[in-house]
């Protein structure tokens, strides 16, 4: 019984253990240097990642409150991996930060919230886990303590997330009113598509839309991404978004299966809007972080196409895409993080002539941007390809055509950055940056992942086998 419990909740319990270790380190009076702490935490995160991969078990706990299966475990491992990469990349920034332990405490609490959100089998638990995965991030947004913009980002984040969880909670309440149950297993049988159920479902989708910043609900994204510290921005754009997408897939496919004709329409409209508007706004951004923010909004549009496929391929392609998206986006953010922490430059204009001074970093950023744009040798191409394939199963060619057009637009603005780095001259270019070991390791892993996943296609089959 106890071993079952320990194995089933292994990933969550490990995180809780790390959180408690951090609390005790903080409470202890002994002064430790930031470098040694960072190394220790990175090792802990590595152990967490490795321990999560092996010897996992599936089942339910606490009277159906918590359930886990192979797919969830894989998704959690992806998230663990992403957090480890972010932690390695933030090394340079955190080295000088005085609230290092609090940073990790909040980061890992948010991650724990995401894990529980994935595993939740009850709307109430889902809501609490969702809050746990957003509120610490709002505090994290303010971690550039001297910058006004950072405070502004935190404020916008907390207000918009509170508003969206308000909508979500209203939806959940109406849902409870019409179905009389909060349990995921019992909900599908009670769904009959009456007006109130659809209304509350729309509210739920709106709540989800805020978290993944799909277009009518995207207004907070750019400001928050721009103001927050880059490590937090990458966490927000990759891990947080990825976790909510995972949950969205499993909730839509399993719990709201009877309402699929309604949510297909909703997803169709959302993905059209998200792709088009995300791309159009990304075209005219000058700040690197805002640029990536809008490009990540556009990526969400593609993800929604995959979800709308409503098939096993849909799930597999979404999970696969998120894995690739984590790798490519984190590679890009890694470079930006280094540049920002060393020279405090963030606009695209500053990157002119980047190749002359920092060829290695330029190549990393180029590969990452190619992957985000979906250019063949990189993994990003296959990610988008599988998404569109899954979406095409519904024979909605309008959506696929628009998506293809959008890929062309996206290619233009990604290439604009690459052109600036390789071709444009600059009077005061970014000086040569010395890359510390940890960020270098993170970038190597990311680039290797992008290339390997592009060539070696077994990963998709592996994910597909997990679902069956």
């Amino acid at each position, binding site marked *: 019984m106890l071993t079952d419990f320990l194995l089933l909740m292994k990933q969550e319990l490990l995180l*809780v253990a790390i*959180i408690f270790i951090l609390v005790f380190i903080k409470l202890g009076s002994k002064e430790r240097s930031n470098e040694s702490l960072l190394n220790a935490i990175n090792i802990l995160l590595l152990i967490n990642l490795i321990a999560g991969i092996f010897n996992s078990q599936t089942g339910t*706990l*606490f*009277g159906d*409150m*918590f359930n886990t299966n192979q797919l969830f475990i894989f998704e959690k491992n992806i998230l663990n991996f992403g957090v480890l990469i972010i932690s390695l990349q933030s090394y340079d920034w955190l080295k000088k930060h005085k*609230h290092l332990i*609090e940073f990790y*405490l*909040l980061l890992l*609490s*948010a991650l*724990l*919230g995401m894990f*529980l959100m994935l595993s939740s089998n*009850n709307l*109430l*638990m889902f809501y*609490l*886990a969702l*809050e*746990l995965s957003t*509120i*610490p991030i*709002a*505090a*994290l947004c*303010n*971690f550039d*303590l001297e910058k006004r913009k950072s*405070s502004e980002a*935190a404020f916008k984040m907390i207000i918009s997330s509170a508003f969206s969880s308000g909508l979500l909670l209203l939806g959940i309440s109406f849902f409870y*009113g*019409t*179905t*009389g*149950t909060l349990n995921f297993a019992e909900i599908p049988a009670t769904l*009959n598509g*009456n*007006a*109130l159920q*659809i*209304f509350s479902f729309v509210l739920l989708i709106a709540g989800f839309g805020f978290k993944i910043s799909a277009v009518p609900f995207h207004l907070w994204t750019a400001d928050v991404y721009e103001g927050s510290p880059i490590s937090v921005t990458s966490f927000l754009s990759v891990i947080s978004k990825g976790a909510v997408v995972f949950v969205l897939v499993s909730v839509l496919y399993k719990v709201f299966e009877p309402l699929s004709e309604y949510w297909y329409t909703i997803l169709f409209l959302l993905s059209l809007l998200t792709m088009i508007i995300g791309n159009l706004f990304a075209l005219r951004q000058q700040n690197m972080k805002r640029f990536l923010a809008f490009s990540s909004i556009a990526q969400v549009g593609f993800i929604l196409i995959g979800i709308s496929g409503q098939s096993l391929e849909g799930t597999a392609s979404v999970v696969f895409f998120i894995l690739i998206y984590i790798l490519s986006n984190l590679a890009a953010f890694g470079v930006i993080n280094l540049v920002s922490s060393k020279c405090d430059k963030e606009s695209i204009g500053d990157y002119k002539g980047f190749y002359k001074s920092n060829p290695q970093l330029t190549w990393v950023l180029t590969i990452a941007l190619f992957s985000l744009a979906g250019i063949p040798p990189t993994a990003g191409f296959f990610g988008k390809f599988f998404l569109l394939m899954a979406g095409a199963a519904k024979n909605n060619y309008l959506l696929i055509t628009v998506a293809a057009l959008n890929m062309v637009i996206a290619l233009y603005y990604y290439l604009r950055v690459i052109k600036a780095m390789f071709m444009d001259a600059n009077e005061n270019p970014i000086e040569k940056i010395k890359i510390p070991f940890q960020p270098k390791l993170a970038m190597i892993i990311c680039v290797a992942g992008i290339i390997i996943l592009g060539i070696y296609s077994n990963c998709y089959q592996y994910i597909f086998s997990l679902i069956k």
Partner: protein
Amino acid sequence: MGVTAILFWILSSLALLSAIMIVVSKNPVHSVLWLILVFFAISGHYLLLNAQFLAIVNIIVYAGAIMVLFLYVLMLIDLKKIVDPQRSLWIKLVGVATGCCLLLVLIAALSKADQTTALTQTIGGNIGLVENLGKILFSEYLVPFEISSILFLSAMVGAVVIGKK
């Protein structure tokens, strides 16, 4: 109409009126005081549902603690210096129109909704009494309960970091 029904209508109209006043009030301090009145009305609703514990906790936590902190912050701000930003007429009109649409949809949806059987069981039941609530909280809803404690811990850590700078 029994006593419960009369009380229900009084409390509901009080809650709605105060909620409207929160939005309409020019002075934020007045808004907060109206909000406190809303919480009292909602506590009254809880009492009608025989959820005495919830009613009292609602008052302790919201009216007694959170709203006091709200008042605290608002009173420290010099409200005269803050000018209400002038919004254009169009934005106001669009806001009113969308609000009305939402209300319309909500009313239409609610009027079509089926009465669920679970709805009536709460009245006269004693699930809201402390003992039952405690039992259910520490058995069926144990995990969400524990999650909320982590949530509070992390929120506190965040607040302290931001506050300390």
